């Protein structure tokens, strides 16, 4: 079975400064892959390569390949389609300045879905999946920016889920929200794993341990070690991995 997602010698530099240095690993279909590592280790740059939003960073230079289902994403003509296949949730909650409903309907609409009935179904499904439906179902016309931080983060998740992405990337999704909301989203991710491949960049080592099937450890732009969650935590091959995951660093 081929990997769902694969990075091959992926490198990113910003104006000559290396942010990611020849990183290679594979992610199997319908699994959760946690990318851990300290700040500036290249986690966010890696995620941006997966849906090619790195293209919007003028100074960034990318070499190597990201393969989705065996096809290099750099060769894909339909970049917008790629971004709908690979959903992205950011570190900070961002409600777009429009209603909750319009926030979630944004991606389907930009894909060309116009029928109200169809949009209604998508919006409700995405909000239910993100565990936000019960809190907002009576005020779908409220501005997305007026929700609380935790609600906006789940709104961001619902927006990504509205596209039914086959890969869902989450970049430090829990740094701006409370532990209770974090646990609820973690439950959501467990649920989603049945249909979706999930890439989770996180600073929280315990979160990686709770959720991940596979762990990728980056440090100073380089891949230190990759392996399944048990062997990474119980029997890491590299000293640095055991010190970082064991909590000796940071």
């Amino acid at each position, binding site marked *: 079975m081929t990997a769902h997602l694969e990075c091959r010698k992926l490198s990113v530099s910003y104006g000559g400064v290396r942010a990611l240095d020849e990183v290679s690993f594979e992610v199997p279909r319908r699994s959760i892959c946690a990318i851990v590592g300290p700040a500036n280790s290249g986690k966010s740059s890696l995620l941006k390569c997966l849906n090619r939003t790195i293209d919007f960073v003028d100074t960034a230079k990318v070499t190597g390949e990201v393969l989705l289902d065996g096809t290099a994403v750099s060769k894909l003509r339909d970049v917008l389609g790629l971004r709908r296949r690979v959903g992205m949730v*950011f570190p900070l909650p961002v409600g777009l*300045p429009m209603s909750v409903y319009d926030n979630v309907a944004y991606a389907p609409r930009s894909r060309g879905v116009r029928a109200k009935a169809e949009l209604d179904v998508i919006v409700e499904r995405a909000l239910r999946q993100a565990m936000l439906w019960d809190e907002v179902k009576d005020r779908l016309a409220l501005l997305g920016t007026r929700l609380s931080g935790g609600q906006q983060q789940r709104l961001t998740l619902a927006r990504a889920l509205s596209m039914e992405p086959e890969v869902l990337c989450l970049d430090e999704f829990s740094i701006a929200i409370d532990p209770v909301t974090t646990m609820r989203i973690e439950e959501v991710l467990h649920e989603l794993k049945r249909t979706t491949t999930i890439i989770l960049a996180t600073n929280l080592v315990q979160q990686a341990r709770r959720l991940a099937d596979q762990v990728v450890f980056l440090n100073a732009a380089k891949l230190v070690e990759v392996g399944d969650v048990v062997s990474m935590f119980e029997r890491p091959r590299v000293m640095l991995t055991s010190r970082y995951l064991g909590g000796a660093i940071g």
Partner: protein
Amino acid sequence: MSPSPFAPTAHERHKEAVTARAHAVTLAATVALSLVVVALFVTLVVRAAPALSGALLWENPADKGKAGGLWAPLIGTVWLVVLSVLLVTPVGVAAAIYLNEYARPGPTTRVISLAVTSLAGVPSIVHALFGLGAFVLFAGLGASLQAAACTIAVMNLPVVIASAREALGSVPHAFREACWNLGASRWHTLRTVVLPNSLGGILTGVIFAVSRAAGETAPILFTGAVFFRAIPDGVPARLAPYGLDDPFMALAMHLHVIATQVSQMPPERTYATAVVLVTLVLLINSVAVVSRLRLRKHRKW
């Protein structure tokens, strides 16, 4: 008895004194500024009082401006402003969108930005001569309303570009990234999120630019404004008395001529003309101020 532990130290007293002085100086500057504006307006109105009436607005000038009203120059200025806004807004806003949203930072973008900034520093009399050469003579528009409107539009271009860029820049970058991550193109993002949330700011900037244009004399001096032109009577004709390729009357031009070149001009009429011009500018400005206030109230984030 020992001093209280909470008594201010010498350093704290010094800081307080400095703060108080800064407060006083900045307040004085603000009051002085307001006084100048109030003094200007009150002086104008007091001196113009004998000539102020409804007829002054509605009647056409007669006897080199010594009799009649100000209708013909007033409506000329209004049309000049309307036309130049229609010309400058699409070009200025499109350029701002390009510079802010599409252009990659680099030498070319820097040169273009520098050119726009330099254009803002060109004196209005130079714009006037440029308008004469480019629009009146080269483009063959003749000394006309359209040539003057083009000249004013070019003069306002940098102001409109700068304020539109500022308005676009005030929309947080995170909103754009959120849209890109959802598979929206740059243009779709602009149309659905960036422009709807910066349109108010852009329009406010345009209105401020316009109000400045209404009071300018130099750029229209060579490009189409005349001191006197008979205009037809009757209500529909009075509202649009000048064709696009006709020379036209304008308030700023009228004021310039009656103040400097007409002998035995009753002074209260000169002041009255100034009052009408200043009021027009203030009216346009207040539209911008009100729209800005409404905008702040309806901020979406």
